[in-house]
């Protein structure tokens, strides 16, 4: 395999584009526009916002990387079916701003369909912002091939000043794996909401499988960026998949639920002892600073009083229901009390469900 990888490297020795895009600590993101504009509202008293990890349109398919399956490359029909379901849900829920995680724009696994453009052209959204978390000409592993996937914001109103903030890389990987692995990011963009001069949308997809403190660093970086916006007099709404549980969650270890049939954990001779990405126990307080500094659409006390009602994720793709909360909306202005909804009925459409809330536009 080293010979194959070596020959691979030679092929890209001095090519026009790096084999794997590495990104600067801060750089511009990409802007998108629909091919058929719909006039946005010229005023807005209330914003309805939504966050959704759409799992690149794969629905509940057993994709190898995040479930116990062996699927890697979807057919075009499978991708379009997934996107159509997502578009229908957007149409039903009518968010004004949508924060998306795991959207593909140029990936072999989803037939190279630009899902950003597809969603803009098949919904009422006019504008989009995209930042990549994984961009490679070829990932020589499991047949993944070419990939470009990341975070996005879709909006009725114009988006400008798209910024990509590079988040800390995992510290628990060997150099070769790290080179070809994801580079998580935070997207920040200015959105021209009527009557708001300084409003920002932010989207984060924190690390999912680290076994060290990478996720904690992601929260710290996120906090730092949002604090900057606040200190400069800006308003923001952040939507994201933090891959962390709310503090006070009853269940924090999902190794047994997430384990595949040939895996065993928690035994004396088991190595690893926990499944990567399934044991949140040592991480349970890491999201507290976000709750301490900002407003969450689902306040912590509300979550703790009825956790099942707010679960947004499951790795069980056959007959499982949501069993943990990983998806959040935060802002430096309070959301309208009781306006939050966790749309658990969307279970066929992704391994995460959308979360919505309403936000009163400050005068």
């Amino acid at each position, binding site marked *: 395999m080293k010979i194959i990888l070596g020959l691979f490297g030679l*092929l890209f*020795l001095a090519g026009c584009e790096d084999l794997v895009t590495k990104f600067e600590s801060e750089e511009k993101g990409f802007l998108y526009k629909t091919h058929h504009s719909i006039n946005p509202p010229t005023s807005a008293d209330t914003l309805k916002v939504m966050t959704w990890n759409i799992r690149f349109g794969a629905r509940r398919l057993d994709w190898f990387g995040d479930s116990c399956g062996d699927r*890697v490359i979807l057919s075009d029909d499978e991708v379009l079916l997934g996107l159509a379901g997502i578009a229908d849900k957007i149409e039903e829920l009518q968010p004004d701003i949508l924060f998306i995680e795991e959207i593909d724009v140029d990936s072999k696994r989803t*037939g190279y369909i630009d899902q950003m453009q597809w969603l803009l052209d098949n919904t009422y959204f006019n504008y989009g912002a995209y930042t990549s978390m994984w961009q490679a000409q070829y990932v020589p592993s*499991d047949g993944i091939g070419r990939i470009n996937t990341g975070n996005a914001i879709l909006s009725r109103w114009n988006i400008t000043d798209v910024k990509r903030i590079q988040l800390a890389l995992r510290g628990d990987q060997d150099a070769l794996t790290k080179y070809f692995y994801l580079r998580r990011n935070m997207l920040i963009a200015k959105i021209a909401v009527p009557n708001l001069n300084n409003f920002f949308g932010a989207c984060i997809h924190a690390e999912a499988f680290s076994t060290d403190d990478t996720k904690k660093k992601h929260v710290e970086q996120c906090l730092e960026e949002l604090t900057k916006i606040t200190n400069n007099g800006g308003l923001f709404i952040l939507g994201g998949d933090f891959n962390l549980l709310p503090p006070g969650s009853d269940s924090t270890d999902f190794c047994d639920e997430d384990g595949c049939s040939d895996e065993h954990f928690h035994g004396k001779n088991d190595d690893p002892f926990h499944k990567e990405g399934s044991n949140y126990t040592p991480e349970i307080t890491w999201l507290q600073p976000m709750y301490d500094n900002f407003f969450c659409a689902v306040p912590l006390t509300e979550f703790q009083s009825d956790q099942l009602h707010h679960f947004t994720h499951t790795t069980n793709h056959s007959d499982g229901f949501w069993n943990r909360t990983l998806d959040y909306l935060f802002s430096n202005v309070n959301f309208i009390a009781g306006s939050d909804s966790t749309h658990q009925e969307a279970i066929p459409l992704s391994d995460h469900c959308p979360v919505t809330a309403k936000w009163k536009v400050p005068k």
Partner: protein
Amino acid sequence: MEGAEVKNIKLITLLLLIWSAGLGESATADESFWVRESAFLLQRGRIEKGIFQPLIYGFSENLEFSTHALAFFVMPNLSIKLSHQNVGNWRFASTHGLIYPTPLLRLISREGTGGIISPEFSIPHLIGISNGVLVSRQFQSELITLKAAIDVGLKMGKLDERTTIDLPLVYPRLNSFYTSCGMKFGLDVRHQFSSKFDILADADWFVFPGSDDGFAWEHKILVAYHSRRNRFSLGYKLVYGEYPFGKAWHLIAPIFDYQRAWGK
């Protein structure tokens, strides 16, 4: 692409300067060795082998065998080159090849690192058949070769189009298994500017009728130092292709090879 274009222009300029520096000299290419990809055949009994170039054996005055020996165990392959009647100063030869890439493709269809093709797909038995013609003319210091070939890809079963390897150099060479057949045209110009140095410039066109991604163009320049037994070459390759993800340029540099000869 700007950076690569500038790099490419500088490299081409340098190589053209080297080439033109030798134009005042006249050196005749020896027709009996280092003649791969021309209508000339190796001398009978001579063997040439490169790190990347195939193993070539001059069997007789009219027949030459070649195989990519290192890859043979995972991708059995064999070609022959036959010389034909000359027409005036033009030499004619034909090439005929067989390749069986299935073991290699199955080897790289795997989970984990080294998985170039997704293991969810099965790779049937595949046989590639190539037939081509080469027409060469030797001028005083230049050897010009025109090439044309038809590649046919035979499949003993279903080959899912999602098994394509969407990489430069690889994609057009396997495309005949997805489109059933493809054509290749080429032009080589080799200038011998001393008895030890030559420079090769070539261009190849790959065409797959009826395919959405049915075109590729490759160009390389190689500067070589050689003796009767050894040949060192260094250069670059520029590739333009249509792939399932769209059109793309790739500059592969440096490319190099070392070839050794035995026998005559």
